[in-house]
């Protein structure tokens, strides 16, 4: 495939994705509301992702602290370790790593599930059964991803900070109370709010890309695999792009 064809294919897919997102906004506020399916998706997307997100968050906090410690000791600012780790986790690492784990688990799962439903005609069967499949499958999943990722991100931050507390205590002795006072004192409103807001956009990106890839899956099992894979890859890239934009916007608004 020539570069020109690739570029055309990229633009065409970007256009299709934008149209898909516009269709989401057009349908999500109109009845019939699929409340029970939305709650079921929140359970699957949110609750069932918690162990994985919690585990990675814990390891991330612990490892980050252990890696930072020698440099902090060299500069003689070891006492600032809880503050530095706290800012790093809450402002940047927590939301982004959680979103990437979320993209890996949920993006691929949505892409594969909808792709499989598409190739086995289950989506057509839904339409024949008096159901708007876009509303039932896409709107509920995207809404659940938008609502669940911020909650998971907050929980992941908390677990991550607990990991950091253990990391601090591997070679030192800081009380749990003192550690948290140090972390909370170092954080300002400007650190927490933009980081929290961007997770809604990350959730939307993971949900809409997973659904787009699955819903437009080509025929055959190879197509299902491709949908799942490309959903993860594209979601991850979009998360980094959104993060870059979020940093620029918060900087522009004076939040940094």
């Amino acid at each position, binding site marked *: 495939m020539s570069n020109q064809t690739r570029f055309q294919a990229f633009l065409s897919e970007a256009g299709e994705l934008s149209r898909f997102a516009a269709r989401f906004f057009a349908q999500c506020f109109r009845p019939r509301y699929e409340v029970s399916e939305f709650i079921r998706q929140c359970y699957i997307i949110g609750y069932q992702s918690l162990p994985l997100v919690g585990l990675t968050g814990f390891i991330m906090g612990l490892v980050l602290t252990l890696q930072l410690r020698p440099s902090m000791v060299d500069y003689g600012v070891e006492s600032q370790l809880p503050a530095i780790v706290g800012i790093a986790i809450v402002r940047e690492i927590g939301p982004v790593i959680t979103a990437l784990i979320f993209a890996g688990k949920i993006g691929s799962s949505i892409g594969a599930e909808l792709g499989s439903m598409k190739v086995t005609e289950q989506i*057509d*069967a839904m339409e*024949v059964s*008096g159901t708007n499949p876009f509303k039932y499958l896409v709107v509920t999943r995207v809404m659940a991803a938008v609502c669940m990722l911020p909650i998971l991100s907050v929980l992941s931050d908390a677990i991550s900070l607990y990991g950091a507390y253990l990391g601090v205590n591997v070679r030192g002795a800081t009380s749990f109370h003192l550690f948290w006072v140090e972390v909370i004192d170092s954080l300002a409103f400007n650190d927490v709010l933009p980081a929290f807001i961007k997770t809604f956009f990350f959730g939307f990106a993971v949900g809409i890309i997973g659904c787009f890839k699955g819903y437009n899956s080509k025929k055959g099992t190879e197509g299902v695999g491709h949908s799942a894979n490309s959903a993860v890859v594209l979601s991850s890239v979009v998360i980094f792009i959104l993060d870059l934009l979020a940093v620029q916007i918060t900087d522009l608004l004076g939040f940094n």
Partner: protein
Amino acid sequence: MTPSESVMKISHLYKSFGNNHVLIDFNFELYKGENVVVLGKSGSGKSVLIKCIIGLLKPDEGTIDVFDQCINDMDDTELDKIRAKVGFLFQSNALYDSMTVRENLEFPLRRHWIEVSQEEVNNMVMEALEDVGLAHTIDMMPIELSGGMRKRIALARTLILKPDIILYDEPTTGLDSITGSEIISLMIEIKKKYNTSSLIISHDMNCVRRASDRVVVLYDGTCYAAGTYAELQHHTDPKVKQFFEQEFKQ
């Protein structure tokens, strides 16, 4: 059987995908209580035809009237009312993997806003499952069932709304000859029991011979020949003959 009331009429139907002209001036009429088989080679546009009838694909030109109502320009709400009267058996069965057999059967009942109590829902589910002889699978997942059982469950889901018309998309494809034969028997029983009209898409000559009151040969996107199985069996046109010669060889 004397065909009387027309339940579906297709007039001058055209459908293309780019330069691939799948249906060209296709005309057809289905009467109450008859089973019509649309016979054609793979890729001849049989599945496209029934997807146009159920509203999953929009025709480029022509009209499709179901119960004297043109479905071409219907909105989703109107189309859903028609779909409640038209059952569709998918080639791949299209059972929902994440739901049990009971939930699969309840799904169309709940989605078509049919107001029935839970007790009535249970009775309807059991009746549909008994019709296909699989009442014991009610709490099983589709993955636990064999290919033939899945086809029967899909048929039970099609029957649950007591449709007046049933569209079968290659009902015996992917099944061994014995299971395929059982499905055909079931289709014949269902027609007798509920007096349904059926449009069966198939290239399985056993299915054509046993299940059809009338056969339509779809060739080059058009209704090439029509008649009873016996009439078409002795047809002199080579394009029609090839289907029946193939059966003789088998």
